[in-house]
């Protein structure tokens, strides 16, 4: 990596919160055709700007969740495991070397995010360890929770699911281990009004690495197993080809009575629309018949995977306003996950798709969103290029209006989705790399050839309109806001 003479090249300056002002002072640039990011170069941006930043102790970050404690905003960030260079980074608060787990930050003042605590995770590099997934619910909304408590559900590496009491986010206390000795874990969902949790687990007797365990966590201290769920052919004792493994799900809760399951990462994607009531109260034995019973509609996408399927709900489409029928459409947004570096290894472009599920039994993809490769020569910048995730907040500020997609080395992309038949990019932000940013390698002539680039991994928004984007390549969390035309798409001033 080429060293810059700027003050920003100092690791210390970058790792301290005080450098935030320095970072924001640098004028953002449009994406260029540069082939590699440079330390010290300003971020590439359009209609988005940096508000605040934290380095997350240079830990590789996956899921950010922003939770309100009254007037206080707290960010919980799940981490992948460490790197071979630094398997166990030091937590300056405790002074200890700790396996990557969960970072907890006060982001009430987004300009000055304050790191509160780190909860160590499981040993293991990358996806082998850490505690990548996190969800948070208030005790007062959970039917049998302590009304004064706040609870965090997280994975413990690939081994287990845990519930923590995070009433004081600076001093989390583990309450219970729900399910352990698992083969794998991943992107859970927790209904904060009922306590029903959909856990992405790998039970040893199942034929797939990832399936669903459903628990009643209405009293988070006393988990009650409800059932297991998966695609027909994944259940114990089945034969033949094993269908695509689960990635995650989102429940719409009691009223809407739907759970949307997403299977696959970068190929063989399946999205299922499931009747929640039938899922929770139907016969529980994992037989093909019982696994099929709650399924209303299913969609297959062979060249793409379904990292996340986000139900956007019923949307009035202005283009169809004068049509006698079909002016309101039920839309699901699917985000694929790019897995490979530099567009290699059999992977087709992973992107975002919009599904018309107005007739639930026959969901149809209708449109897609993609970042132009040539706009930044992203296939040769280093690391992954392609979609990964989107915000899951349904706060009115952005819901059904603006989607934020993480796109690995192309940063986070702001997309106007008011017409889901014709999604349109309105802004983007590719954070600057720092000395903490780790490299990504591909094999060239049998040898590693490595490059350093931002790997924007996951993103979340809060009800104030701040955008939280976290980096898989250890650069930290960037708190952003929309500017210019992009603000008007969301109705922001």
């Amino acid at each position, binding site marked *: 990596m080429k060293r810059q003479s700027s003050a920003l090249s100092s690791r210390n300056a970058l790792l301290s919160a005080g450098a935030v002002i320095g970072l924001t002072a640098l004028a953002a640039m449009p994406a260029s055709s540069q082939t590699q990011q440079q330390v010290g170069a300003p971020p590439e941006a359009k209609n988005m700007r940096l508000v605040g930043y934290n380095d997350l102790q240079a830990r590789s970050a996956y899921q950010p969740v922003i939770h309100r404690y009254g007037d206080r905003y707290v960010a919980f960030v799940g981490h992948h495991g460490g790197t071979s260079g630094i398997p166990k980074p030091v937590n300056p608060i405790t002074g200890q070397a700790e396996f990557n787990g969960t970072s907890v930050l006060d982001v009430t003042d987004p300009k000055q995010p304050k790191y509160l605590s780190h909860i160590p995770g499981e040993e293991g590099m990358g996806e082998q360890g850490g505690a990548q997934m996190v969800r948070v619910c208030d005790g007062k909304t959970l039917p049998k929770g302590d009304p004064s408590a706040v609870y965090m559900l997280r994975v413990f590496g690939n081994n287990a699911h845990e519930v923590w009491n995070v009433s004081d986010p600076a001093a989390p206390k583990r309450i219970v281990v729900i399910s352990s000795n698992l083969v794998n874990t991943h992107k859970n969902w927790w209904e904060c009004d009922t306590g029903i949790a959909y856990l992405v687990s790998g039970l040893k007797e199942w034929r797939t690495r990832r399936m669903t365990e459903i628990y009643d966590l209405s009293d988070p201290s006393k988990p009650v197993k409800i059932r297991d769920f998966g695609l027909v052919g994944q259940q114990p004792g089945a034969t033949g080809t094993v269908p695509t493994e689960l990635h995650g799900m989102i429940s719409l809760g009691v009223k809407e009575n739907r759970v949307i399951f997403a299977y696959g990462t970068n190929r063989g994607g399946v999205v299922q629309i499931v009747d929640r009531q039938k899922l929770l109260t139907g016969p529980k034995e994992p037989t093909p018949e019982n696994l099929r019973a709650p399924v209303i509609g299913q969609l297959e996408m062979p060249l793409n995977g379904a990292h996340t399927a986000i139900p956007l709900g019923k949307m009035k489409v202005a283009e169809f306003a004068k049509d006698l029928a079909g002016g309101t459409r039920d839309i699901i947004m699917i985000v694929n996950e790019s897995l490979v570096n530099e567009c290699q290894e059999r992977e087709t472009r992973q992107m975002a798709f919009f599904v018309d599920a107005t007739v639930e039994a026959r969901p149809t993809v209708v*449109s897609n969103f993609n970042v132009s490769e040539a706009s930044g020569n992203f296939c040769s910048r280093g690391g992954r290029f392609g979609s990964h995730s989107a915000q899951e907040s349904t706060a009115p500020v952005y819901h059904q209006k603006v989607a934020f997609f993480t796109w690995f080395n192309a940063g986070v992309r702001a997309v106007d989705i008011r017409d889901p038949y014709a999604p349109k990019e309105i802004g983007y932000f590719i954070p600057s790399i720092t000395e903490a940013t780790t490299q990504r390698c591909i094999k060239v002539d049998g040898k590693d050839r490595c490059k350093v680039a931002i790997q924007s991994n996951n993103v979340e928004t809060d009800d104030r309109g701040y955008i939280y984007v976290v980096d898989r390549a250890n650069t930290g969390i960037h708190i952003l806001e929309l500017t210019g035309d992009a603000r008007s798409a969301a109705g922001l001033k």
Partner: protein
Amino acid sequence: MNRVRGFSCRALLGTATAGAIVALLTMPALTQTRKEAPKIGDPPEALNMRLVGHNDLQARTAYQPTIFKQGGRYIAYVGHHGGSKENPAPRNPLTGQDELNGTSILDVTDPKQPKYLAHIPGAVGDGEAGAAQMTRVCDGKTLGKGDPNKVYLLRAFGRDGHEIWEVTDPAQPKVVWRHLGMTDTHKNYWECEAGGIAYLVSRPKGWRSRIIEVFDLSDPTKPVKIRDIGLPGQEPGATGAVPVTVHGLVSTGAKGNRIYLAYGTNRGGLLQILDREKLLKGPKEPTPDNFRYPQIALMEMTPLVGAHTAMPLGRIKIEEFSKDADKGDREFVMIVNETFREECGEARQMVWFVDTTIEKSPMVVSNWTVPEASGNFCTRGGRFGAHSSNEDMGAPYYQKLTFITFFNAGVRVLDVRNPYQPKEVGYFIPPISKATVQRCGEIGGKQRCSNATIQSNNAETDDRGYIYLADRSNTGLHILELTGEPRAIVGLPPN
């Protein structure tokens, strides 16, 4: 309707004045779409397209144009819907007779001066109940067993069935074969290669729905039936709900070995992909198992839309994906829905692009519609929405530009080089004339008529790059050419 001086009814209906009309219509076109209903005398609305020639087609409502090169000439065969109650059999000036709408045959070698050669009358019946809406043409010398010196026209005969005409001299068509006794005839396909396989769309007696009869027409004078194919549940004796009916199909012949079928018109759309060889050689009895045997995929669309045409675009290398591991090498089918209702009385019918790279699991990836607000099309009158596309699979347009008829929004030119991001690069909405009829019927729950507007119905292209656009509301055939950007995309010389 406003009368415009010097633009009389007779002038428009007489072929002799076609040149004068062209001169008028090629005045600098408005490059913007108007917001109000068009009037007689208004210039066309156009972007990157212009009028080259016009023929009024004897003011007959027109469906499928087929352009065929024969004897050094370009001949257009235009299928017609039936006439109207007021005028069920318009006058054919060539014969001096009143003739039920059938097939118009024109010499379009000089596209500026299309010459009307012959009209073959069709079946009794108004609108879709009569006439001869579909046309396909093959050369005897490519069919294998046909007379190599002859040219044959396969056409629908009303709802009743199918006919073959010898059109070697396109001014003197002669009937060769009649296959009648069916109902619900529609959009046939005929492979002009050896084998002469034809897929005849109609509902034979005893069947529960419109299906496909497969024929060997390699010798058009001696047709040989091969088999029938439909969806399970459509066969005689089946029970339960009848599956959605086929609308039409396109075959890629022996080499491509695929047939793409479109089911539904404005709702319940399905795309079916069949293995052609398995269809032709597989067990023929009309059983559900035998129907399923040649099936590679059956893709359901959102039931809000139908499938009028399933047009294979073949393998396209997508520049945007060129650095990805698959080099952007994908395969596509384009689906065009058909709008049925006037004034937007249904869900929007539009255009869809399906990635069929993994054939067993086709997936829609993108859509395209004309923005309604760009011309206030829902309130202009008549139908607004997609209907059809050109089906020519040769140069200069295949896999680059496609032409979609959109009823009152005319014909639209789409750049399909990246089917993930289809992009409009031109359009042409012909001007209406005295011959243009109003669309009447149940509109918005009432029996009434809506404004007379262009109802661009079907389009076809030829290897010179001319675009032939047929109007459902009797305005005739407009021959167009591209200008500007889209012309450069396909490498046609600047004009």
